[in-house]
C-alpha cells in the first residue's frame, strides 16, 4: 500500500463507562477496572482482520488498525475526498456491542 494511501486508526473498545465525546477522564487508579477481557479483544481484532484491516496492536483499551483509504471508506464510511480525514467513523453493526468508536490517528508534534 502506498504511504500516502495508508490510514491508521484506533478502535476504542467499550469501557465500563463511555469515554468518547464526554468529559470523563481516566486515571491510573481506575484504569483497568472491568476492562474488556482478552476474549473480547481477540473477537474484535479477528473481525477487523476479516473486514480487511491490518491489526497492528491490541490491548484492553483499543485495537490499532491500518488500511487503505478505499477500505476505510467502504467499511467505516470515511469520506473519500483525498484531502479530508474523517475523525469519527461508523462502527460496523456487528461490532457495536464491543466498540465505542473508531478514530483516525494523526502524527504527533515533536517538541
Amino acid at each position, binding site marked *: *500500500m*502506498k*504511504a*500516502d494511501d*495508508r490510514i*491508521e*486508526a*484506533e478502535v*476504542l473498545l467499550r*469501557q465500563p463507562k463511555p*469515554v*468518547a*465525546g*464526554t*468529559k470523563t*477522564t*481516566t*486515571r*491510573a*487508579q*481506575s*484504569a*483497568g477496572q472491568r476492562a474488556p477481557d482478552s476474549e473480547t479483544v481477540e473477537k474484535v481484532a479477528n473481525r477487523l482482520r476479516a473486514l480487511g484491516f*491490518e491489526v*497492528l*496492536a491490541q*490491548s*484492553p*483499551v*483499543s485495537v*490499532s488498525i*491500518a488500511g487503505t483509504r478505499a477500505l476505510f471508506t467502504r467499511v467505516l464510511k470515511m469520506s473519500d475526498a483525498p484531502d479530508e480525514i474523517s*475523525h*469519527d467513523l461508523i462502527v460496523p453493526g456487528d461490532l457495536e456491542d464491543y466498540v465505542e*468508536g473508531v*478514530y*483516525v*490517528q*494523526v*502524527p*504527533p*508534534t*515533536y*517538541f
Partner: protein
Amino acid sequence: MPKKKGSNSKKAGSKPRSRPGLRARSLTVTMAGKPTSKAIAPPDRVSFEVLISPPEAGLSPTEATERISFSNIENFRPAKSKQDQAITRMAELGFKIVAISPYSISAEASPSLFSKVFGTQLEVRSIDRVQSARPMREKAYYAPAAGAGWEAPTELKDLVHRAYIQPPAIYFESALPPNVNYFHLNVPSGVAVGTRAVDAHHQGFTGKGVKVVMVDSGFFRHKFYASHGFKATVMLAPGATNVTKDDNGHGTAEAANVFATAPDVTFTMVKQGMNSTAAFKAAVALRPDIITCSWGFDLVDPQSPIRKHLTQVPNTLKALELEVARAVASGICVVFSAGNGHVSFPGMHPDVISAGGVFVDQNLQLTASDYASAFDSKPFPGRHVPDFCGLVGMQPHAIYIMLPLQPNCEIDRELASGGAFPNGDQTAGNDGWSAISGTSAAAPQIAGVCALLKQKKPGLTPHQIKQALMASAVDCSKGAANSASNEGVALKATSGNDGATGSGLVNAGAALSLV
C-alpha cells in the same frame, strides 16, 4: 515541525549488516551494465547532474576563470528554452528527470543507458560512506572509468555541456561536537551538571539495571553514543519503517539527554510511525521501568486567535489517554514533555510527570524558559503543567544543548539554515550536530533522573518518584513561561511552587537523598 514519515510494514533488522575489511575492486562495466566479477553490488541506477550549454559568449561553470558566487552566478545561467529542449530530449532518450533548477538538471538512468547514450564506460567503485566507531561501512557506485571518453549524442549536442555522475555523500559526523561561539551546554557533562546528576553519579547511581524506553522518531547510531559507551536498542513500532534511520533527527538527539543523566540505563528507542497510540502500546509491552515521550498534541481551538484551550480530550486521543493511565497503573513511570507553547496532551495527563523548562546560564543562574509551556489543564481540572522542569533554552528557538543526530537530517539542515545565533545554531547542515532543546530535552533528562531513583529503590512507585522529584527541585523565581500555552498570558516564576516552573529545576542529587 518536521513531518512524520508515512509507513509501510517492514520487519526490523531486515537490512544487511556491513562486513569489516571488505574492499571492492574497480571493475569495467560492459555496455550491458553487468559487473565482471564479484563485489559489493552498486545500485542499478546512476544519478547525474546535467549542465546545459552556456549562453553565447558565456562560460560553463566548469570553464569559469573566477570563483562562482552569488555576485556572478547569473553569468552561468543557460537559456530556459535550451534547458526545456534538453529536458524533453533527455526524457525521449529514456532518462528520468528528478529535479530541475535554472543551472542544472538532475536525472537518473540505468548504467547501461548512460554508457550507451553518452558513449562512455563506467566502472564500479566503493566509498567508505560513514566513518564510525564500528567497522567501516562501504557503498558501491558507478563512476566513469579512468580514461573513458564522453560525447553527447546528436539529440543533445547543442544543448548539453556535460553530464556528471554524482557519488554518494560521505557523512562526516564526529563523536565530538563542533565549536560554536555562543553559550550552550554539551552532552553529557553540561546536562549532568545542570540537573545535578553528577552528584548521583559520584554516589554510584548511574541508572544501571533500569529499563528506559523512549518513543520517538528513531535512533541513528551516531559515533557520539559508541564513543561514550552508551548502548541503545532500537525497535519499530507498528507501521514504522527503517529501523536504522532517523531522518527527522529528533529521537537520536533527545536520547542523549537520557544518557547524560543516567549513562548506564538499559535503553530502547521505539521508532514510531503514524500512530503514537500504537507506538505507546509497543513501549508498554516491553515492560520498562520508565517511558519517556517528547511529543504530544496541541489541545486548542484551531479557529481561536488566542489559542483557546479545548475543554475535553478529543475522541481521537481517548485511547492514548487510557493507555497512559494503564501504563502508570502497572507501575511504569511515564514522563511527557509539557510542550513549547503547546497545550500539550498527554503532557497534561495527571498521571504522568509533566516536564517543563528552566534555562541555566553560564553563571548557573536560573530563569524560567520562555520557550516552554505552562498552563492549567481544562480537560483535567486541577492539573497544572508542568510538575517541574528540565534544562530548556530561551526563545526564539531554544538553541541551547548541542546534541548528536543523523547527519543531514531535517533538524540538522533546519538549524544550520537559520544563520547566526539565536536564529541558527551555526553548525553545518550535514555534520550530525545541532544545538536544540525544548521540553523535548527536559523529558528525557527527567526520565534519566527517575532511573537514578529506581536504581537506588527499585520498589518506588511512579507517584513516589514524582513526589520525591517535586520535593527536591531547585526553586526558580525569575522569568515567565511561554504565553502561547496559556491563551496569551505568560505564567510567571515566583518563589516556591509557581505557575511557570512548578516546583523548579530537577535536582537529582537532592532527590536521591529523599528516597
